[in-house]
């Protein structure tokens, strides 16, 4: 893995004698990523608790979800993460054109996810499954909505990465930001990987 030195970024006063272990992005970024994961953990825990109060209702409602769309979205996000990983690798080896096209691919996946989500939401509302219907659908819309909010932020982040990918030479700070942005997209993916089975599969 390419060694991006973070000392100047982090504090500037660390001794330069020992080589820094490489943290993806920069250490501070993980406050955001872990902090977000902790709170989503609380969200998931709340959902599990609510489900334990009405297991039959939750299971019956779960079966009315569009499993196909959920699965397609899972594959789309996994593909997008693959695009992002290869894009970062391409940026590291200065293959700028490849990096840009890979990021465009990741962006297309992100937009496809949003598109499918809109289709899914519209279908659910037309079937009469609204947030007011029952506790399952309340949590379904809120949890996927909060995740969708993360996807929107992630799409903005990917656009920022795209603007950086064309630069000929990235400074240590910029490279750390690019890696950090990629990590955020992986977080969006990871949250969905947990959310999908939790809502669609667990019976």
């Amino acid at each position, binding site marked *: 893995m390419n060694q991006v030195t973070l000392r100047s970024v982090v504090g*500037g006063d660390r001794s330069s004698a020992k080589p820094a272990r490489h943290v993806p992005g920069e250490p*501070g970024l993980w406050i955001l990523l872990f902090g977000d994961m902790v709170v989503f953990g609380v969200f998931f825990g709340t959902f599990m608790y609510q489900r334990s109060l009405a297991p039959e209702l939750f299971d019956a409602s779960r079966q009315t979800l569009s499993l196909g769309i959920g699965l397609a979205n899972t594959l789309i996000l996994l593909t997008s993460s693959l695009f992002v990983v290869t894009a970062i690798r391409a940026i590291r080896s200065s293959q700028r054109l490849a990096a840009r096209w890979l990021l465009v691919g990741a962006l297309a996946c992100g937009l496809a996810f949003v598109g499918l989500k809109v289709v899914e939401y519209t279908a659910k509302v037309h079937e009469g499954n609204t947030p007011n219907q029952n506790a399952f659908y309340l949590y379904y819309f809120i949890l996927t909505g909060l995740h969708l*909010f993360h996807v929107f932020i992630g799409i903005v982040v990917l656009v920022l990465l795209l603007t950086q990918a064309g630069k000929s030479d990235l400074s240590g700070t910029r490279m750390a930001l690019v890696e950090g942005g990629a990590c955020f997209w992986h977080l969006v993916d990871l949250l969905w990987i947990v959310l999908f089975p939790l809502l669609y599969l667990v019976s």
Partner: protein
Amino acid sequence: MHVKIEKAAARLGLAMVGGFLVMFWFIAGLIPPMNPSDSAQQTAQIYVDKEWRIRIGLALMILFAWLFAPFFALLSRQVRRIEGYWGVMSLTQVMLSVTFPFGFSLCALFAVAAAYRPERNPDVTQALNDMFWFIFVGLVGPLITQVVILAFCVFIDKREVPSFPRWFGYFNIWYAILGVPGCAIYLFKTGPLAWNGLFAFWIPLTVFTIWMIVTTVMLTKAVDVEAAEREKRAASREWEPAA
């Protein structure tokens, strides 16, 4: 003297968070929040039961909310220092800082109005109560905008000794993301996004408190950074910009 005043301003913000929790939670008893799906009669009954607690607790808030101002003045100054001149970011910070005490005192005015004549038509009390929660929990835009600007400033600070560590920028983004769900309370009467819900009330309240504590510490350190910079300038007899 500068340093002492500015550190006092930072700590005043922290003290005010403590004061807010005492006034809203222990005196007025409005935290934990009442249920938004309560009927008008039930809501009015709460105001009958807690009439004096609410009037005293919130009267204190209407008076003291303005003590948040020095804290945000210091925050705006630090953004101004990073930006280097009175640019868009620091001016936006100043403008939004003005709105912050209103977030607390304006909502309190509605609840005080509800508790002032609790014997009146319950529908009126319910409407005033709704306004209280809509402002108190739902008005998240100004602070989130401030926090996003602050995060951006932390990231673009290219000076030799930056005012804030970079993790503070990411911390602010974390706060901004978790603060947003509060804006959804207008759409729900039950569940986690109602005004008494976990996602719209409890998590944002917790994160806000953490943010105020961390920001107080960071501002105190930024004051030290500035003081050191000023001393260095004085030693080398450089002209000191009026920042």
